[in-house]
């Protein structure tokens, strides 16, 4: 069994984790084009090499980030998302934020 180090819970069997996709910068949904938004939602880079990914430790529902080599499947580092997301982001609540929604 592969072991992954959860930043909150410590080393655990890989079967306790759920993959959450690549870490991607979210475009501003109020100003970006439909193509940019669709690319963000549906497409993956699928790069060969070290990528940063979202993972969840399922028993504690704890989401964190992992640097993993997609060729060797070696997990290089796992860390709390607060290292990246260190300030509050308020999302638009007005209707202009709902791209593509028409009355």
């Amino acid at each position, binding site marked *: 069994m592969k072991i992954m180090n959860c930043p909150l819970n410590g080393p655990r069997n890989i079967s306790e984790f759920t993959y959450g996709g690549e870490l991607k910068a979210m475009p501003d949904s109020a100003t970006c084009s439909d193509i940019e938004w669709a690319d963000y939602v549906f497409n993956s880079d699928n790069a060969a090499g070290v990528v940063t990914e979202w993972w969840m430790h399922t028993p*504690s529902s704890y989401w964190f980030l992992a640097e993993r080599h997609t060729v060797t499947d070696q997990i290089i580092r796992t860390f709390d998302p607060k290292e990246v997301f260190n300030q509050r982001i308020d999302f638009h609540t007005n209707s202009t934020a709902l791209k593509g929604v028409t009355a």
Partner: protein
Amino acid sequence: MNSLTAEAFKERSPLYAKHQDASLVALADTVAVARYSKAAENMQLARCALVDLSNLPRVCFRGTDTADFLHSKGYDLPETPNRANAQDDGSMVARLSQTEYLVLGSLRDAGTRVADLEAQWQLSEQANYLLPRQDSHAWLLLTGEHCAAVMAKLCGVDLRNGNFTQGAVAQTSAARINVIVINNHATALPSFHILCDRASASYFWDAVLDAMLEFGGKPAGIAVLLD
């Protein structure tokens, strides 16, 4: 013959159908198993026993103000995640993440302090959010000198005393379902609190009993714990 039956109460343990031959005892507004065998169960609990505490109140709170809220209610909180502090009244507070706390009721007051804590909570400006756990989780107590050996058959985490000390919390997988295991060796009786998905409780109860067989483990009631 039982004078009390689980069917007479609105709140029933998800395992009540498995306790048909046990004698029951009143526990606040519901019932719990007093004992499985006619004889006293002290020796069984000291050796290896599984107790269903699912009818004892428990609740979670999460938020950046949760620590202040629980402090104001007189609870002593663990300083780091994945640790639990036993309280003077027999209840227990486990810290599951930076801002999430699980409060387990005490048998001494039938969990009324924790039930009141949940009932009195109100949504406010304070970032302290209620996470009801009574109907989401079942609560078992695995007791006795063999409890770490039993868990070693079901779980990938080393729960032996050297690694998993008094007050340690492990959120992990046991018998292939998600569980929260809390080391409760503070009392003379070594034991683990185990919380698992309530809908899977029947499966988990049987899986743990099966693992306990080789250690002479049996289900037991709360009568000894109330003494």
